[in-house]
């Protein structure tokens, strides 16, 4: 056997040693099979009912031009279809204790990770996505700031002190939160506060810090190795601006930058490509950013009336928003945007549906919504589930079929 073959065996074994399936895997399989069977049964019944109804209507002599009831909602005043309401309630609801503060939330596979500030301190909890049961919990030394899950399932979490004090640092935890590797960010050479973290490849992640973009490398949780961190001197962030959010955009990292001078506007850049910048100019400012498979989505707000507009940027940060999106009144006044693969989620205001999703495909836009609490807050999105903070806790709603 060649050295490469034996190394492959060792590398495969090492990379997967910590992975374990959900304890409720069999239950989830059974529930999904039953749900699909009942959906098929309901669909068959519905089709039969529609066919019967159509037959009755068309065979009635007084109705030579029958109009069948719409199954996708009535058209909006502009003629565009209104969002399809998916009446399915939440699939899961993770209860929270009244008075606890909910920080960032991330979802990976069968687990929902939520950072909380409780009476007992700050903590990171891992919940079963199907049953909402608490699987594990770990105390944090300071208030959590950013949370993200890498492709290998390891959980990256940054924290820095609030008024209660505490250290600044970043952890990389195993999916079960039982093991971790750490890097302090309050040393003389790294006096940073990390606002956002984006795991990139292998052991590395990009941080958005108050000193600019940084790359950190932390060994896999539970493994020996050196944790390192250094500022990115080649980043797009100019002097006098602070990166506050990051998004994986194709092969690039999109950076949301806030100027330290309040009269200047926030802008979006691409890490390592100083020439690429999107800046809305003095007429408005950028409010929210999310990357999908089909572009970088931003919400800008007009300085004059604070009205929000959804835009799509291409990989050169050029505005390529197609008319159906910008002009669609059903999307209301967008406030925040999140995306997962090809599904884009918006929270809107102005009397429209609070949570609106759409799948963008060749300029065709089909919209959907969920019956979540209008006072809720969008927390995290996955291709098949959207998580919303409601008064009762964290609710996971199925993504409407039209948005997938």
């Amino acid at each position, binding site marked *: 056997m060649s050295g*490469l073959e034996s190394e492959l065996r060792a590398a495969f074994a090492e990379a997967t040693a910590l*992975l374990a399936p959900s304890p409720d895997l069999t239950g989830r*399989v059974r529930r999904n099979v039953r749900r699909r069977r009942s959906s098929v049964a309901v669909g068959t019944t519905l089709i039969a009912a529609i066919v019967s109804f159509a037959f009755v209507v068309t065979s009635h002599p007084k109705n030579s031009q029958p109009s069948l009831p719409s199954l996708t909602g009535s058209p909006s005043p502009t003629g565009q279809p209104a969002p399809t309401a998916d009446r399915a309630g939440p699939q899961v609801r993770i209860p929270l204790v009244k008075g606890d503060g909910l920080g960032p939330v991330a979802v990976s596979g069968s687990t929902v990770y939520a950072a909380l500030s409780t009476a007992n301190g700050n903590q990171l909890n891992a919940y079963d996505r199907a049953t909402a049961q608490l699987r594990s919990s770990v105390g944090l030394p300071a208030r959590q700031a950013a949370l993200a899950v890498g492709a290998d399932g390891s959980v990256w979490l940054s924290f820095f002190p609030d008024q209660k004090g505490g250290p600044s640092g970043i952890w990389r935890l195993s999916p079960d939160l039982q093991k971790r590797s750490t890097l302090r960010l309050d040393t003389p050479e790294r006096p940073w506060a990390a606002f956002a973290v984006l795991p990139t490849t292998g052991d590395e992640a990009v941080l958005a810090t108050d000193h600019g973009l940084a790359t950190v490398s932390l060994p896999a949780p539970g493994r020996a190795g050196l944790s390192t961190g250094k500022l990115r001197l080649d980043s797009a962030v100019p002097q006098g601006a602070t990166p506050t959010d990051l998004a994986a955009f194709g092969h690039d990292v999109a950076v949301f930058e806030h100027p330290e001078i309040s009269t200047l506007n926030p802008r979006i850049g691409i890490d390592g490509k100083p020439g690429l910048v999107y800046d809305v100019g003095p007429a408005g400012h950028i409010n929210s950013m999310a990357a999908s498979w089909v572009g970088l989505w931003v919400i800008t707000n007009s300085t004059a009336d604070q009205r929000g507009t959804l835009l799509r940027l291409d990989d050169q940060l050029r505005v390529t928003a197609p008319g159906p999106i910008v002009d669609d009144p059903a999307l209301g006044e967008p406030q925040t945007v999140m995306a997962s693969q090809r599904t884009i989620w918006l929270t809107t205001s102005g009397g429209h549906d609070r949570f609106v999703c759409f799948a963008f495909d060749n300029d065709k836009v089909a919209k959907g919504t969920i019956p979540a609490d209008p006072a809720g807050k969008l927390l995290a999105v996955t291709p098949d589930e959207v998580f919303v903070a409601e008064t009762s806790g964290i609710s996971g709603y199925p993504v409407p079929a039209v948005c997938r």
Partner: protein
Amino acid sequence: MRSTESTDFELFVAACSARLLRSAYLLTGDLGEAEDLLQTALEKAYRRWARIRQTDVPEAYVRKMMVNAATDSWRRHRRPSDVDIDDVRLPTVLDLELEAVPARAALLDGVRQLPVGQRAVLVLRYFDDLTEAETAKTLGCSIGTVKSQHARAMSRLRALLPAEGTSS
């Protein structure tokens, strides 16, 4: 499903799901996708369990469904990082005796960049310990295809990894 079949399925999942999840993770490179892949394959298996449990190796049956689903999924959602074998010029001379052993992290990154068919061959051969014939059966192709995919994958890995194996 009868209760004995249901219990049987439960035992199967308890015994094999960890191994299958790990295979799925190596196939997809993403834990979330791996869990989805495994669950989808198990749902298909659950519906046909009465028949699958009669086979000698239900695990092989489920693994085949999983590999097929991974290939289909990859075809549907082809990502920019996926590189076609045709786009890569293979080194013409490989000195297996002199090859250096690359760092494992770099090796895994290299595996993730392989086309899914080649990656599947490596995972089935070096993680699941299948023979060439078993790999061919799982992938639904000939042994010759497995051999050629394997050779290309190994060549690609050496080509992707920095300088090792090709230095003079």
